[in-house]
């Protein structure tokens, strides 16, 4: 589709600013929707970032995704309600992509009863079962679970797909490669979205891996793959659109490696620059090549920029966010939890229906142990 052989974190910057974004790659209403969804996510994250301190009401680790909006925005326009989506710790974009209720995200972060998980999970463990969105902070775990869902979908011959979003750091884990081995062998309906933002916390991918071409390395496992410049939102959209279509048609698992960049610290609003893991030159490059800005320019070049629509959309976003904050802050904290009930289910409806009660058993203890052989 597009010549992307040059793509890697080693080369992106040296090629100079990215000029290839074409609004025409997608229909005008898609272009506008991408812009709106990216802006919505960005504005949410900025608002949370600003509010985090000194209010100190969001008392959980938050991994902000500013700079990485294009993947979640594209997914939000492409996944179906019945698809399953699994996210890593940097979860807000994916929560958003699945159309899960934003005010429940806010309330969850605030630790409130009205949160998506009643304040039990927080930002890095949030889930919303009704919209089939799940996450977790243990790297690569959710990728493996996504393969389990995909197994079920395959057995049921369902048209739904299972999606896992994760970073390049997660691919250090054995669980990731176990998943590839199995998903490739089984040709599962699984979309793997790797947001390669170069770093795991502060650690450069090339400090942890021999090469930075995950999309190449997955191929021998029977996983189709494609790499894209992750801040080119129309390209990301088209890539994922075609990918999802092919998976639904039975073409098996696909990995999309999207090279992108996180603007903020790894976690929380505090600056982690003292670790000196990246240069300001690099950060400035990525801010100049911001996915929202690149799309804005492309829309303008294509004469698809309608200022009054844009202003209207921004206003709605601001209102939505104000409402989310209000909801979260006014909601009550959870109290009087029954720990046992929270952790254990004691109802067994199927067993009640199908199983007889036990009778006295007559065990004779005078039997010898099983004779074991070499195995």
């Amino acid at each position, binding site marked *: 589709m597009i010549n992307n052989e040059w793509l890697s974190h080693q080369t992106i910057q040296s090629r100079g600013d990215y000029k290839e974004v074409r609004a025409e790659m997608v229909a005008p209403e898609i272009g506008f929707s991408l812009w709106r969804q990216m802006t919505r996510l960005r504005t949410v994250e900025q608002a949370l970032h600003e509010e985090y301190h000194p209010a100190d009401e969001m008392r959980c680790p938050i991994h902000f995704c500013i700079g990485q909006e294009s993947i979640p925005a594209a997914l939000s326009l492409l996944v179906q309600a019945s698809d*399953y989506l699994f996210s890593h710790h940097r979860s807000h974009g994916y929560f958003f992509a699945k159309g899960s209720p934003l005010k429940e995200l806010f309330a969850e972060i605030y630790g409130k009863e009205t949160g998506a*998980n*009643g304040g*039990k*999970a927080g930002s890095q*463990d949030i*889930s919303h*079962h009704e919209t089939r969105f*799940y996450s*977790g902070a*243990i790297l690569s*775990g959710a990728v*493996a*679970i996504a*393969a*389990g*869902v*995909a*197994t*079920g*979908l395959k*057995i*049921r011959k369902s048209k739904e797909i*299972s999606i896992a979003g994760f970073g390049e750091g997660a691919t250090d884990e*054995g*669980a990731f490669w*176990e*998943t590839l*081995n*199995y998903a490739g*062998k089984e040709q599962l309906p699984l979309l793997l979205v790797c947001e390669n933002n170069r770093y795991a916390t502060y650690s450069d991918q090339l400090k942890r891996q021999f090469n930075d071409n995950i999309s190449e390395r997955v191929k021998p496992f029977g996983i189709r793959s494609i790499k894209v410049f992750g801040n080119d939102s129309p390209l990301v959209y088209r890539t994922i659109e075609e990918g999802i279509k092919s998976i639904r048609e039975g073409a098996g698992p696909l990995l999309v490696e999207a090279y992108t960049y996180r603007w903020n610290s790894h976690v929380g609003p505090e600056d982690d620059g003292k670790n000196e893991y990246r240069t300001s030159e690099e950060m400035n490059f990525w801010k100049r090549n911001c996915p929202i800005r690149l799309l804005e320019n492309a829309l303008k070049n294509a004469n698809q920029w309608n200022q009054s629509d844009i202003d209207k959309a921004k206003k709605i976003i601001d209102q939505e966010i104000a409402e989310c904050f209000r909801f979260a802050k006014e909601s009550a904290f959870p109290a009087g939890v029954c*720990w046992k*009930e*929270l*952790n*254990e*289910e004691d*109802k*067994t409806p*199927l*067993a009640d229906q*199908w*199983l*007889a*009660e*036990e*009778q006295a*058993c*007559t*065990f*004779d*203890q*005078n*039997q010898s*142990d*099983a*004779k*074991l*052989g*070499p195995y």
Partner: protein
Amino acid sequence: MGRELTYAGAILEATSQAMSKSDQVVIMGQLVDYSSGVFGTTTGLVNQYGVERVRDFPVAENLMTQTALGMALNGFRPLIVHQRLDFMIYSLDAIANWLALWRFKSNGKTNLPVVIRAIVGKGWGQGPQHSKSLHSWFAHLPGLRVAIPATAYDAKGILLESLLGESPTIIIEGRSLFSMKEEVPEEMYRVRFGKAAIRKAGKDITLVALGMMVPIALRVAAELEKVGVEVEVIDLRTISPWDETAVLNSVQKTGRLVVADPAWKSFGVAGEIVTTIAERFRGEWKSRPRRITHPDSHTPMSMSLEKEYYPNELKLVEELQEMMKA
């Protein structure tokens, strides 16, 4: 006299019955679709239910458990089998970071009925990587059910209760019990969690036994009966939850408690039981409580050392007689 089945045969029957009753039940594990069928516990299932539901899984225990979790999320009731519990340690992340806390994390809304069968080797030089019984590790985790059936009857009832229940469950199976026969009803029945079996009534000593210690405990009780000591043998059957009431009631009668746990002593189930009863027992101890366990050592291979390592009847008889003196 009704029909008899071995412990292994009872597991096979429970699995097959659950699979035929509910097409949500699928089984996954290494070599589950070959005729040897994990020591006869899965033999023939593939012919009846096909390879989609009887899945020979890659040798990737962590992924297998995560896959089961994902399938449960998708409406299945997966049963995982590990030929040895030791192999399952690769799946501790899936168990401790995901499965056990899924319900909690969902604010008590979502249950994952994943059942894990873990076989504990004993004898024929299984050695330190084929014989561990880590039931105390699993029982330590909130959100999991843990069972350790000792008899064929219970093996079937507990497996059915788990497969048709709603909670993540780990069933520890003693390999040395697999050939033991017993009357097992053909019908589908349940053995509930948290309900111990009083295998023998007695008024002098409460002997709580788990898994492969149960037949030994019963033989010891029979031996001591000959010298006039009445041992009450309680087979706990499930350890998370465990039947505190049954043990407490018994201790109230006997004033003596000994726990026989086929595992290491330190930080184990035996210690947990003794502590809980010590906290709740209001009467007077006639003898201090005791634990009979494996030594705090890894399992030796050599036949002679195996004999020394595993607690035997003689050791138990001695210990119990001493309790009567105290």
